[in-house]
């Protein structure tokens, strides 16, 4: 249990959803502002590097239309502009805090009005964190240094925005890459509806998925569930997912479906029987179409399927399931594939 561990944190910095998160509404009785979120996050990041001297950290931000690396403990930022002597603060904490906050501020300032409408680049931030983990794990294995060889890498995603159906394939590809690298992906859903894709990410990589019930207690959730590395978590009782949704998004409308029609050649998913596959241009036999149309469930529109879901799920999540559909449909217009 004495090994160093690497933590990559992906922070969802969607301005729109942080605004929603900080406003008090009927559903959002305990608002959490971005400012308070960041200060709690920094405490968590500090405690990670304080746990063990060899622990490494990388922080990535997902902004609308771009993804940026906010901080990494291996990139000794040369000629650190944030360096101010402060007798009261441990120097690595100071560097980390200043670097994260200033990079966020710098990038948020350059966001134009057209950028705001774009979805956040969660995929970019996730695949960057994988590239980074690939870099440090291959570097440590060639150094054959025992301490760095056992990195036990993990990724923590702090998400506030809903699933973008257009990013389904890249997210799944990233999840399989994480599986290959033996990276655990933890999810902390700070605000908003349950994320189907991120649930699958946690499930497939053996991480935990946590939907905050009280967003103002963020720091407590973070330190209790996500601070211990996966090797220690086997001894602890970390929250597990009660139910995982294995639904997929259809390729034609990017709607989440639970019964889909799949092209046997390219595995494109459609929400209704189509005569020609839009991905690979395969024509399907008329007979199949007639048979499938006859066999379709009487109410096959995806909007009604969550009623099946809610009947089986816990009562507390009923309201969330309802918003899930609306949330995922509002992102339909973006994405071309």
């Amino acid at each position: 249990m004495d090994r160093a561990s690497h933590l990559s944190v992906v922070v969802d910095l969607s301005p729109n959803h942080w605004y929603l998160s900080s406003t008090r509404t009927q559903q959002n009785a305990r608002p959490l502002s971005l400012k308070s979120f960041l200060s709690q996050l920094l405490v968590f990041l500090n405690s990670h590097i304080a746990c063990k001297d060899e622990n490494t950290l990388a922080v990535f931000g997902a902004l609308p239309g771009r993804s940026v690396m906010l901080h990494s403990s291996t990139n000794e930022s040369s000629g650190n502009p944030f360096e101010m002597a402060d007798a009261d603060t441990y120097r690595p904490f100071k560097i980390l805090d200043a670097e994260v906050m200033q990079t966020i501020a710098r990038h948020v300032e350059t966001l134009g009005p057209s950028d705001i409408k774009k979805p956040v680049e969660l995929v970019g931030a996730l695949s960057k964190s994988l590239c980074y983990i690939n870099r440090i794990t291959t570097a440590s294995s060639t150094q054959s240094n025992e301490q760095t060889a056992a990195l036990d890498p993990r990724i923590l995603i702090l998400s506030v925005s809903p699933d973008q159906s257009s990013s389904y394939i890249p997210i799944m590809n990233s999840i399989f890459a994480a599986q290959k690298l033996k990276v655990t992906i933890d999810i902390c859903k700070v605000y908003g509806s349950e994320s189907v894709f991120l649930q699958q990410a946690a499930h497939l990589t053996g991480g935990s998925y946590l939907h905050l019930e009280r967003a103002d207690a963020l720091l407590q959730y973070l330190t209790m569930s996500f601070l211990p590395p996966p090797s220690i978590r086997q001894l602890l009782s970390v929250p597990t997912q009660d139910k995982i949704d294995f639904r997929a998004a259809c390729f034609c409308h990017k709607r989440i479906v639970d019964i889909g029609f799949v092209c046997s050649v390219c595995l494109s998913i459609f929400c209704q029987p189509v005569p020609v596959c839009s991905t690979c241009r395969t024509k399907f036999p008329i007979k199949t179409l007639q048979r499938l149309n006859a066999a379709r469930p009487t109410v096959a529109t995806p909007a009604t399927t969550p009623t099946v879901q809610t009947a089986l799920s816990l009562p507390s999540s009923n309201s969330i399931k309802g918003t899930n559909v609306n949330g995922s449909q509002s992102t339909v217009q973006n994405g071309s594939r």
Partner: protein
Amino acid sequence: MPPRRLEPGYHDGESDSDVDIFDDFGASAKSKGKGKGKAIDRGKKEKGKGTSKEQPYAWEASYTRSWDTVQEDEAGSLQGAVEDLIARGRRRRLLAPAAAIRRTIIRHLILLLDLSSAMMDRDMRPTRFDLMLQYAREFVTEWFDQNPLGQIGVVGMRAGIGERLGEMTGNPQEVLKAISERHKLEPTGEPSLQNAIDMARSSTSHLPTHSSREILIIFGSLTTCDPGNIHETLAECVKDRIRISVVALAAEMKICRELCDKTGGQFGVALNEGHFKDLLFELIPPPAQRATAPNARGGATAPADLMMMGFPTRLPDTSPPSLCVCHSKLKSEGFLCPRCGAKVCDVPTDCDICGLMIVSSPHLARSYHHLFPVKTYQAVTDLDDTPNPSSSCHGCARPFKNAPQQMAGSSGEGMSPLGRYRCPDCHNDFCPECDVFVHDVVHCCPGCGK
């Protein structure tokens, strides 16, 4: 001990191996004789190709030490050798077709293992049999990783009959179990291709039309003792659109090549251990379907179809126990059919109540990178056209070298002297390691998320 390569001069000396061949199996023995002739030209032809094939046959190779194949440069580092490897990987990718090609994703494979006494030959270490089992296990694991919707069944051939070792299943563990118990698979007697293929064919007869049917034969013998005319079996396989591929460990037999050619499969003779593995692993990626025209050779292109599939909800271990519909067992975990709400134990499967095909979406998603590959990055040769070159890799934030670097050896082609590779869509620069990692593992560009 049958020799595997037959040089003209060597031909006479092999009569000792023919002693154990039963000449009363007319057709097969004749085809064997012809096969030898072919094997000669093939052996010569192959010698000129790719690197793994340039090595001599296993028994005539001198002992090579793995550290001899890696060379240090003047500075004593291995950088050059590593870059060579990377460069080779890049070139291979450049040669691959960029456009989305049609592939057979839902595959059904029968693994036909030769368990005849010829497999006890020691020309591959430790024995052909042990090596085959070891590679077969690796093959199965990798195959299920790349073909998550596929199913594999195992048939052995020994003592003149085909023997079903494992039922057709989509669970890798069950397949591995079928080939894990070495003592149950002890090689003995003569193989029978016809009996084994007939058995394999019968276990694929119930499959739906849109799935592929494939037989992969690992064949170490030079004979086959068949009860009837094997060409009739071959005709049946062509009719059933079964694709037969053969990896031969001895020499080429005419009937084996004919089986592959007529059914659109691949045929290869393994030269040595490494080549054996290469031949086997070449068959793992889902086969590309050529064009939309039906396969001219009467091959195994399955017709396209639209399938209705359900994506289930997984119940956690902590949910109240209920009966599953597949085994009627009381248990907590399971998957709920989205149409009828029945609980099944494992996916992919067909719902026992309403017949809906239930798959989890990750199963489908695992195959998408075959269909939507990341665009090949272009090597950046100079930065004159770039107004603001980034100082570090867009993926891993590793800083770029400033001065162009002399490329080691012959690897210059297709490589960037600056160590920069640019995505054609988002125009971000990546380091060589990320270039390989993005294309081989992540399958998603960190810059544009495609």
